[in-house]
C-alpha cells in the first residue's frame, strides 16, 4: 500500500550516515553497489552500450564532486548521492499501484517490481534523483539499503551491512538505526552536526550527511635557518644565491 505506515515513536529507522569530510571520491561504493545489486533484490540492473559511445544504465548510488567557497577557503567535496529512505517519501504516496512502499518495521523504501507499471511518477516526485527507470525491465529501480544483505543469515555478521558501506576504504559511510538516539550512527550525527538534504521540501530524509570539518590553518613557509657544515666560502655563495 502506498499509504505510509503510521509513525511510531522509537521505531527503527535504518539508514546511512555519509561523512563528506572523509569521502575521497573513489566511487568504490557506487561500483560495489552496482556489483551486488546487479544480482540482488532488484537484479538485473540495465547497462546499455557499457563499453561504447552513449553508455547508460541504472545506478543506485552516484558520486558527485563539488567545489565550495572561493580562493584559499575553497574546498573540493566528494558527494555520494543515493536514496535517503525518507520518513515522508512522496515517491511512495504518488505510486498509483502500491508497488512503492515504505516498510513499517525498518523504514526501508522499496519497489515491488511485480506490481510496478513503470509510469515513472515516483522519479518525478523524488527531489533527490534516487529512482531510476530500468528501460529493459520496464520498472522503476532504487536503492534497497541492501535489504538482501543486512538480514542475510548466510553472510558473516560483519558483512550484514549495505554493499556501499562494506566497501568504503575511507570509512566514510556508516549504517545503523537512526531511530535510536543511542545508536552509533545517531551519536555520530549528533557529535558532527549531521544534516538533511533539502530539508525545506519536508520529505524528512533518514540518511544524514556529515559536513566537512573546518580546514586547519595553512602553515606559512619560513626558510629553515642555515646550519650544516661547509666552508665559509660555500656558505657565502649559498647566501648570495639565496637572495
Amino acid at each position: 500500500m502506498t499509504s505510509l505506515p503510521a509513525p511510531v515513536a522509537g521505531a527503527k529507522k535504518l539508514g546511512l550516515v555519509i561523512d563528506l569530510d572523509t569521502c575521497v571520491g573513489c566511487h568504490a561504493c557506487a561500483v560495489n553497489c552496482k556489483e551486488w545489486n546487479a544480482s540482488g533484490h532488484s537484479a538485473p540492473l540495465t547497462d546499455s552500450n557499457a563499453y561504447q559511445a552513449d553508455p547508460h544504465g541504472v545506478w543506485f548510488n552516484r558520486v558527485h564532486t563539488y567545489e565550495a567557497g572561493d580562493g584559499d577557503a575553497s574546498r573540493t567535496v566528494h558527494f555520494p548521492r543515493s536514496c535517503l529512505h525518507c520518513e515522508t517519501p512522496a515517491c511512495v504516496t504518488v505510486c498509483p499501484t502500491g508497488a512503492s512502499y515504505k516498510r513499517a518495521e525498518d523504514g526501508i523504501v522499496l519497489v515491488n517490481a511485480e506490481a510496478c507499471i513503470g509510469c515513472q511518477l515516483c522519479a518525478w516526485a523524488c527531489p533527490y534523483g534516487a529512482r531510476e527507470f530500468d528501460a529493459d525491465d520496464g520498472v522503476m529501480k532504487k536503492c534497497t539499503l541492501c535489504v538482501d544483505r543486512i538480514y542475510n543469515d548466510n553472510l558473516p555478521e560483519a558483512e550484514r551491512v549495505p554493499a556501499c558501506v562494506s566497501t568504503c576504504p575511507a570509512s566514510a559511510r556508516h549504517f545503523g538505526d537512526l531511530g535510536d538516539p543511542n545508536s552509533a550512527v545517531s551519536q555520530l550525527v549528533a557529535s558532527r552536526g549531521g544534516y538533511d538534504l533539502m530539508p525545506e521540501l519536508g520529505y524528512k530524509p533518514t540518511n544524514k550527511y556529515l559536513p566537512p570539518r573546518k580546514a586547519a590553518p595553512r602553515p606559512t613557509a619560513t626558510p629553515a635557518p642555515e646550519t650544516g657544515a661547509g666552508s665559509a666560502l660555500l656558505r657565502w655563495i649559498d647566501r648570495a644565491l639565496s637572495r
Partner: protein
Amino acid sequence: MKPASSIVFFTTASGAGYGMLFWLGLLSALGDLPSSTAYGMTALFIALALITLGLLSSTYHLGHPERAWRALSQWRTSWLSREGVAAIATYIPAVIFGLTWLLTGRGSPLAGVLAAALAVITVICTAMIYASLKPIRQWSNRLVPAFYLLASLFSGAICLAGITSFVDPIAAQSLGLVSLFFGAAGAVVKFAYWRQIDTTRGTSTAASATGLGHLGTVRSFEAPHTDENYLLKEMGFRIARKHAAKLRAYALLATFALPLAILIGILAGPVPVNTLVPAALLAVVGMLLERWLFFAEATHTVVLYYGREA
C-alpha cells in the same frame, strides 16, 4: 522535464474530450442544446473518442501497460490513481446518457449532470498529478489546476460549438460565447502562470541540495558519469530561453488569440458561424504546443546536483 508525446497528447485530447462531455451533459440537461439524436450521438462519440484515445495514449508512457489496471488501487494517496478511477467512472454516466438519448430521444439529465461532474473531477485529478510534485516548482503551483480546468472547459466548449454549428447556429453562437469567456479566462491565467514562473526562483538551491552552502558558493566540479543518464534525460530536459519565448507566442496565437478573434467576429456578425470548426482545431493544436511547453519549461530539483538551475 521531458515532454513525452504520449502524455502531451493525452492531457490535450482527454482534456478537450472531458470539456466537451461537461458542456454536453450540463447544457443538454438544461435543455439548451439541439435534441436531434444524430447530433447527440456525434457529439458524444467525438467526446468519448478524444477521451479514450488520450487515455490509451497515456498507457504508451508505461513500462508495463498490461498492468495498468493496478493503477486503480491507490486512490487514497495517489492523484494518478484517482485520475484513473475518475476517468473510468466517467464512462458509466456518459454511456447511460448516450443510451437514454438514443432510446428516448433525450439524454437523461441526471446522467448528463453526473457525467459533467465526473469529467471536471477527472481533469482536476490530472492537474493535481503535476501540481502535487514539490520538486518541480513550475508545476507545484496553484495556477496549474486552474489552467488545466479552464483549458479543458475552453477547448471542450469550442469543439462542441464547432459540431453544433452544423445543426443549430443559434446554439453554436451561445457555445461560442461560453468559449469566449473561458478562453479569455484561460489566456489570463496562462499569462499569470508564465509571469510567475519567470519571476520566481525555486526554494531549493545547490546549497540546500548538498548542504555545503556554509562553505560558500557550491559549484559542480565533476559529474558522476560521463554521459547523460536517465535522470538528466527525463528530468534535465532543457529548452533554450529564446525558443521558449517564440513557442509561447505561437501557442498563445493558436490557442487563444486567433480562436478568440474568430469567436468575436462570429458573435459580432461578420464572420460565418461555420468558422467555429477551424477555430476549434486551431485551439486544440495550440494547446498541444502549450502542453509541450508545460513540460519543456519545467525544471526538477535533481538538476541542482548537476550544477544547473532549477
